[in-house]
């Protein structure tokens, strides 16, 4: 058997888009067998993980954001077609646009060369954004770890020092290699060992933490500077961080109380770094996209109040839906900048 990872299955494409409708559906559990008489074609093979975005030529009907789908809407002149396409996700084949009665056969024939359900191997910008999100998550973890160490709470800091190695490093290792970045797993593990042992030698911990953060910065610097300063690129990274922060904030609270401090702190770290990244492009944004800038700054300001300190407040300042709403507002206002840039 050839063991490749296929990028075809529809649901994965949902990962691509911020505006997800299909992925919110509870996946179906089929208890009846439905043998298909037609042998399906072998999907395109790739060793890459499915990443943030999709191909730039064909429109991925499973993952495309509304403004991309608008191209189809404009071509066919069907009002609200973009929303209809989103509502009927996921698609296993492009032809399902017809069988799911989103459009008719004649309409489909007009756009069939423009649409796809397959994801492509991450390249260029997509791959870079994916890379930087991972490194950004690492930084977020270490930011909050540092805060907790400064509060003399090494035990609370430990999970956040563990996460970059446990959750992220192996996922980014191939890309670090490709980009000829010196490995820093050893540094991260050494720091984790120190903190697990009780962080008794604080100067050593401080030095090692600084070194770890520097290593991540070096890895980020492997990206061209023009890119790191490009608002469209940075906003995509920010969205990746905010989306993760959103999920983790929700996982910290139940019954209106903080039950899992770790997830509160994770999300705090991601927000801190996302905010820091935005400061870097704020001047450009204010000049080039003043409307989006205003919305982002205002929502970010409100968002940050949900994380008043490294230790969770007695009761949440904002509920998970409130945080979700602010994050969605930011993500929506970034879409215009991102889409315009990708044209």
């Amino acid at each position: 058997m050839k063991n490749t990872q296929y990028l075809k299955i529809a649901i994965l494409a949902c990962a691509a888009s911020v505006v997800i409708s299909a992925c919110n559906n509870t996946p179906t559990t089929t208890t009846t067998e439905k043998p298909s008489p037609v042998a399906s074609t072998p999907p395109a093979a790739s060793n890459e993980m499915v990443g943030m975005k999709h191909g730039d030529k064909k429109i991925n009907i499973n993952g495309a954001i509304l403004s991309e789908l608008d191209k189809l809407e404009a071509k066919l002149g069907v009002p609200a077609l973009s929303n209809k396409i989103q509502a009927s996700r996921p698609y296993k084949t492009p032809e399902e646009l017809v069988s799911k009665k989103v459009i008719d056969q004649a309409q489909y024939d007009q756009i069939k060369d423009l649409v796809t359900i397959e994801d492509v191997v991450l390249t260029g910008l997509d791959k870079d954004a994916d890379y930087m999100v991972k490194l950004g998550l690492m930084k977020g973890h270490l930011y909050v770890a540092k805060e907790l160490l400064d509060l003399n709470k090494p035990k609370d800091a430990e999970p956040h020092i563990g996460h970059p190695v446990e959750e992220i490093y192996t996922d980014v290792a191939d890309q670090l290699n490709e980009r000829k970045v010196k490995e820093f797993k050893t540094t991260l593990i050494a720091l984790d060992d120190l903190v697990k042992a009780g962080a008794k030698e604080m100067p050593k911990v401080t030095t090692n933490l600084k070194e770890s953060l520097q290593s991540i910065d070096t890895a980020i610097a492997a990206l061209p500077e023009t890119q790191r300063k490009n608002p469209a690129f940075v906003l995509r990274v920010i969205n990746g961080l905010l989306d993760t922060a959103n999920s983790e904030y929700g996982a910290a609270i139940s019954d209106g109380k903080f039950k899992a401090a770790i997830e509160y702190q994770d999300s705090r770290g991601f927000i801190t770094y996302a905010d820091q990244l935005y400061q870097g492009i704020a001047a450009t944004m204010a000049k080039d996209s003043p409307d989006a800038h205003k919305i982002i700054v205002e929502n970010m300001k409100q968002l940050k109040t949900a994380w008043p300190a490294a230790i969770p407040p007695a009761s949440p300042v904002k509920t998970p839906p409130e945080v979700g709403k602010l994050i969605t507002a930011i993500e929506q206002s970034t879409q215009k900048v991102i889409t315009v840039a990708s044209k």
Partner: protein
Amino acid sequence: MSNLDRLHHPLLHRRQLLKYGLAGLGLTTATLAWQGLKSQSKARIPVVPANSPMMGNTFSPMQTLRDFDYGTVKQENGRTVREFQLVAGNTTLQLNTAVSFNSWNYNNRVPGPTLRAKAGELIRVSFLNRAGHAHTMHFHGFHPAAMDGIKPIRNGTGTIYELEAEPYGLHLYHCHVSPVTRHIGKGLFGMLIIDPPQPRPVADEIVLVMGGYDTNDDGKNELYAFNGVPDYYMMNPIEIYQHQLIRLYVLNTIEIDPAVTFHLHANMFDVYPTGMTLKPSHTSDVITMGTAERHILEFKFKYPGQFMFHPHQDLIAEHGCMGAFNVISAT
């Protein structure tokens, strides 16, 4: 036929009836024997009400018992492929009236769906992570290194796992991101059943997965459960029929505590270790399972009434890992 079957079945076995000759037996016995024959083709399973209690959760453990996900079946190059879709997410579990728990899980339920395939088929799982932390799906069974589910899949991304359905038996899948204890303890686990090429005898098949909850991140489990919700089957006993062959798929996913037993009241069960045999290895009423160990257990109840099951680590049982069968009279 095992000794156990004979012990528990009040009727003579079909073959014996044939041997003795139906003519020599009374009409009543003949009728019962006919029912016995009939039960060979279909198991007697009480109707489970569709509105079984959820107790504040996104799923009902009553539905979990006999809910097998056979996936979407496709034929590719003359081979049966089963495609499954799993999404990691976060939901709040209502463990009891006082305790809620931020769970991480597959498809909004704990345990995740019971995936089921037949030996020799190809299993293809599309996995999407929408749970914040990086997660994976690591399957027990034979597969190449690339499919081992070790590489973290970060939030908002997905991957596809493709594996041969082998070997047949009772297996499991779980997240393998470190600290695994926390990822499993939060609820990222489920059962994988690979049926043997020749189907097992017809039975009322029931899934029981044991799990532990460290509700305050103190490195100790405060609550335990069969199929996600503590004490659910004490409050809602599982209905089964007297004399009906029951096949339990039992899996221990309790982290932190090294091992637990599974004990069934007023009965003995046949043990099929790791579900990897077609003949039982032995018979007992208690079996020890370390974390991730699992077995198929088969039995019939001789008497109607309510019978408990639980680990014989009674403190663990008394913290939620306890349930009961309500055996309904066959007549």
